[in-house]
């Protein structure tokens, strides 16, 4: 049975969980929202890169194989199979979020400003082959197993030899892959090939594939996308969680753009937050002519506000390759020692012709995809201050509608109609 080679795949997400903070976190737009989406964690420190890939492969495991171009030969100790929950946790932690507030009684005196509620500090710990290879100019540099995977690290002199060798060994490559393999070979890149060992997989009783983490030392700080665009049916979405020591990560060969954030939107969006986020992202992609990378989240991992999931403990971050962290496994990192950048990329071969090259910047200004919903006060005005509140309210609601139209491209008339319908059904919260 031929194995289909896949490149970068998949993402799942934790079940919904709400956390109290100043305001109330109600929903998030995680990677599950987008079809054909993959998720990758990329931990970078100096010249060391640890790349973790999750696969949402749904087909027959006998046919699964993964190939990643890597700059150096990867040793057995550099490869580890991780639990899927690690990437799910990062996804939930960094996903764009909807928060809601209730307007207070406008008749009461305006309270003095208070310090925001502190971020949560405590949390629960959560053979023939070798001969054939030589003949084809392919060298099996390393061969080992990791968890349910059998791993090969290959180097090659010619792409046609590598193609023939892969085919002879039951790997099925998409049409058009050879020139891409060829250019990687000429750059002296190696190929990390993983396939599932069905015996071990059955023995462990697992029905899903766990993510693979590969660590290598190289000045190259890049993400090989090109093999993934060969034969792809339409654009794909990729979420990159870049884990860095000093600051925000951005691309050097594509524009990195902040998604609009901290915007007030109408109440009726609450049950359709996923639709809202998809529409907003689609519009942002169109405005940038699908040639930009979007920053959805950037934060110091030492704290969060609001936290859309449990904080990520150092044990998990170390598993993902953040070896520089010091301290107890169950604690979150100290502030200023660890940053996460969530990048959302919608790509195809036409708009992203070359692999993405990254750099770490000194930027430590926090950013999160955060959309705010305010519930109006439903009581009555009993004084001048209360009257002013109700006079201002329609203007605020119109502004929320305009914000929604601007972000999503939805028609303002439709938004007004939905706003009006929601007002009819909204139950007073404060009475």
């Amino acid at each position: 049975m031929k194995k289909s080679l896949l490149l970068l795949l998949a993402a799942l997400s934790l079940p919904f969980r709400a956390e109290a903070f100043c305001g109330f976190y109600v929903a998030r737009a995680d990677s599950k929202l987008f079809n054909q989406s993959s998720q990758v964690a990329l931990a970078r420190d100096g010249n060391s890169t640890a790349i973790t890939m999750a696969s949402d492969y749904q087909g027959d495991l006998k046919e699964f194989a993964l190939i990643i171009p890597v700059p150096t030969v990867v040793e057995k100790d550099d490869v580890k199979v991780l639990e899927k929950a690690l990437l799910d946790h990062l996804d939930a932690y960094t996903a764009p979020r909807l928060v809601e507030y209730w307007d207070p009684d406008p008749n009461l005196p305006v309270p003095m400003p208070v310090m925001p509620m502190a971020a949560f500090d405590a949390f629960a710990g959560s053979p023939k082959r070798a001969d054939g290879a030589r003949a084809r100019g392919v060298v099996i540099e390393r061969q080992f197993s990791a968890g349910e995977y059998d791993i090969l690290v290959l180097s090659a002199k010619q792409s046609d030899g590598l193609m023939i060798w892969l085919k002879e060994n039951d790997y099925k490559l998409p049409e058009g892959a050879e020139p891409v393999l060829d250019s990687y070979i000429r750059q002296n890149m190696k190929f990390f090939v993983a396939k599932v060992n069905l015996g071990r997989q059955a023995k462990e009783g697992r029905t899903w594939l766990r993510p693979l983490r590969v660590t290598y030392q190289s000045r190259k700080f890049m993400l090989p996308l090109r093999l993934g665009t060969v034969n792809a049916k339409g654009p794909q979405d990729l979420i990159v969680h870049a884990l860095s020591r000093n600051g925000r990560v951005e691309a050097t060969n594509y524009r990195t753009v902040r998604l609009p954030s901290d915007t007030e939107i109408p109440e009726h969006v609450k049950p359709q937050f996923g639709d809202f986020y998809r529409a907003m992202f689609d519009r942002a992609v169109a405005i940038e002519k699908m040639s930009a990378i979007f920053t959805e989240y950037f934060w110091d991992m030492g704290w969060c506000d609001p936290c859309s999931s449990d904080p990520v403990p150092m044990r998990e971050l170390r598993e993902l390759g953040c070896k520089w962290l010091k301290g107890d496994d169950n604690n979150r990192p100290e502030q200023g020692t660890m940053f996460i950048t969530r990048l959302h990329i919608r790509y195809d071969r036409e708009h992203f012709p070359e692999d993405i090259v990254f750099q770490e910047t000194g930027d430590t200004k926090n950013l999160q995809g955060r959309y705010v919903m305010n519930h109006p006060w439903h009581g009555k005005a009993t004084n001048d201050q209360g009257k002013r509140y109700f006079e201002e309210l329609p203007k605020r609601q119109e502004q929320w509608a305009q914000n929604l139209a601007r972000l999503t491209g939805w028609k303002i008339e439709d938004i007004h109609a939905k706003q009006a319908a929601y007002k009819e059904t909204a139950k007073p919260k404060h009475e």
Partner: protein
Amino acid sequence: MAKAMAVDPRYYQITVLGSLLIYGVLALDFEVTWSYVSIILTSVLGTQWLCSWMTKTVFEWRSAMISGLSLCLLCRTQSWQLAALAGVLAIATKFVFRRGGKHSFNPTNIALVLLMLVTEGRVWVSPGQWGNVAFFAFLMACLGGLVVMRAARADVALAFLTSWIILIMGRSLWLHEPMTIPLHRLQNGALLLFTFFMISDPRTTPDSRAGRIVFAMLVAWCGWWWQFRMFGTNGLLWSLAACSVLTPFIDWLLPGPRYDWRQGIKSHPDHHEKIPAPSAGGAEPALPC
């Protein structure tokens, strides 16, 4: 003064750089605040004034303004102190590192390189910030070309661009990459900004045409080597600073007449701007920087 404005190419440069800054902030969402711009411009103009006063030369605000606007476009930092220091370094290095009446380094380039070198990432340059929208690249090329033609140093820009295109295209041909890859790399606003506003600085490039062409080829090759062989970022900025050290040697090897911003002004018969006399004891004429 109005006639001076009509001929001094620095007014074009200031206009184009200023327009690019406004475009970057408004249309491309550059993380540049107006307070950041004012810190850098105050620092370059203040340093220029101080250095002019100390060296008894004319206060030349136009060159300082060009350096300041270039820093606003390129230099990224969260620290206002480092932003101010970038401005001070850009101007001070012009007065400190001089040879034969011209400065050794492009002011913006050396300030960026020195700060990237010593601040451990607290100062950075975002080469991807311009994107690669072809229309924008074309527009920048036209505007930049206009500036360079007025500055009469188009040769260095063209020689650099030709070398860079050959290296980028050549590498992709060697790697059997589709041509969309080198084209994507060439359609980059940062490259055009470097070509038409930095390497073409007539006060830092070699004097002779042959020297300038050699210099441009050297900068292109070293930048390419750093970026595509060493996989570093901002290859051209590092390369220009490193190659500028060789300018005196290139001038010695291939001598030529020195460039003076006032050439265009001098050529105008009605121009009345006073040119300062050479300083009393100094061997070098007291030219505005």
